[in-house]
């Protein structure tokens, strides 16, 4: 089984639907440790992507570049820019290709993580979306079967959220909350858990 533009469209639609569903929850999670706009950012970005979903080119690289640009335009929030950065990193790798072997996914996730880390200038372990991506990349590494990959990714994104819950935020707006952030989910990690679960078609 390989991933082509049709499969990508289905994945994007699932993420878009999940973000509409989780709009209030993500705003609230971000409101507790930041400015409360994470649901806004993600629904706006995904709506912009869905608005052009039918026009996405076959070339997966170019298709993901268009997705990245949708995020760049839709919002200036940190998460929107990080999403755009990650999508762009993957787009670069897939330029000119119309199908993708799932076995490459762990490596692509790692590439996105690295580019996003460069953009956000934050360390791993800081209780951010980077830690989610790192967990997914690690948990899926070496896996080639699509279904096993999906299971591992969804589980890893969920597990890492719990692992980090009791740590202190050190990055972004949440940093300023200091000890108050202990016991609270990082909104960006929460969002990534939902995104991965939707992409992996592992929504409850």
């Amino acid at each position, binding site marked *: 089984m390989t991933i082509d533009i049709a499969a990508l469209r289905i994945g994007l639609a699932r993420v878009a639907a999940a973000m509409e569903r989780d709009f209030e929850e993500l705003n609230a999670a971000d409101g507790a440790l930041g*400015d409360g706009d994470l649901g806004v950012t993600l629904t706006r970005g995904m709506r912009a992507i869905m608005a052009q979903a039918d026009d996405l080119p076959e070339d997966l690289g170019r298709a993901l570049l268009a997705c990245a640009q949708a995020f*760049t335009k839709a919002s*200036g929030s940190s998460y*929107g*820019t*990080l999403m*755009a950065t990650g999508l762009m990193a993957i787009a670069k790798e897939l330029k000119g290709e119309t199908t993708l072997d799932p076995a490459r996914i762990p490596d692509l996730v790692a590439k996105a993580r690295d580019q996003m880390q460069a*953009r956000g200038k934050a360390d791993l372990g800081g209780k951010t979306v980077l830690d989610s991506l790192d967990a997914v990349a690690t948990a899926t590494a070496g896996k080639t079967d699509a279904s096993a990959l999906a299971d591992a990714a969804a589980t890893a994104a969920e597990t890492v959220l719990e692992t980090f819950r009791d740590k202190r935020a050190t990055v972004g*707006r949440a940093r300023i909350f200091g000890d108050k952030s202990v016991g609270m989910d990082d909104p960006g990690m929460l969002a990534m858990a939902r995104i991965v679960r939707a992409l992996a078609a592992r929504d409850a």
Partner: protein
Amino acid sequence: MKKILNAPEAYVDEMLSGLIAAHPEYYRLHGESGKVVARATPGKAGKVGIVTGGGSGHLPVFTGYVGTGLLDACAIGDVFASPSAEQMADAIRAADQGAGVLRLYGNYGGDVMNFDMAGDLVEFDDIACTTVLLTDDVASAPPAEAEKRRGVAGMVYAFKIAGAAAEEGRDLDAVTAVAQKAADACRSIGVALSSCTVPQAGKPTFDIADDEIEMGMGIHGEPGVWRGKLRTADQIAGEMIDRLLADMPLGQGDRVSILVNSLGATPPEELYILYNVVKARLEGEGATIVMPLVGRYATSMEMAGVSFTLIKLDDELESLLKAPCDCAFWRVG
């Protein structure tokens, strides 16, 4: 807190449209996003461009300071939200007169990432970019992590000083260096008395009791140093000056400027009441106050509260601070 608006989603677009309609001699829209404002008359060819950006709701910051001797262009986001990287790239293009562009803005995560990404985008246009971040809010991180601090009203001084240097014809490195020197010389602290309402949120950003204030609160309502009962003007000003001086001591012969800034609702009457203590305390340290600024220079819409920004001047900074500038909100010279 009641607001005068039409659709909340239209707040920023209508604000910009009115701003430009009222002051076409100062401002024009640039590009297609409708969220990039540039000087009505661009700076002269070969002048270093200065660009800033950030969320709406802080007038005159950011957009208002586009003007001669100040900024060349500005990318504006929604209320309290970073503009997008695309808009910032447009602003950089609008600011460019062929001598490169200084990105001069406050240290907020989203703004930093977007301005960096905007820099990547304009690399294709061969526009050289430098960056100076304002990190003047002493309440937002201890001195050991000073580089993590938020940028607040200190940017008013940085815009003024860098703008004057660019207007003088200095090159990109020189403008960047003096902007960095100005940013390094600024320390700010704010105190909030009441919240403001982000139009799309429709309710106050934070709750604060009728007799409470929050020392050190950020301009979007970020948590401060303590929350407690309202105190007298003298006590409030005294503590704010204490905190600034603890971070940047002054001595005999130092020359400083100070911005006593209303966050919005607090009237100038009360700023002047505070200024008495500010002046006595700074002069008590042996410092001389140069060109004090008292008014609404960096706001959070209708938030009640004040901020102080202290800048320690050397001859170069002082002469650039006093150089002429002109925009709809501020004129010097």
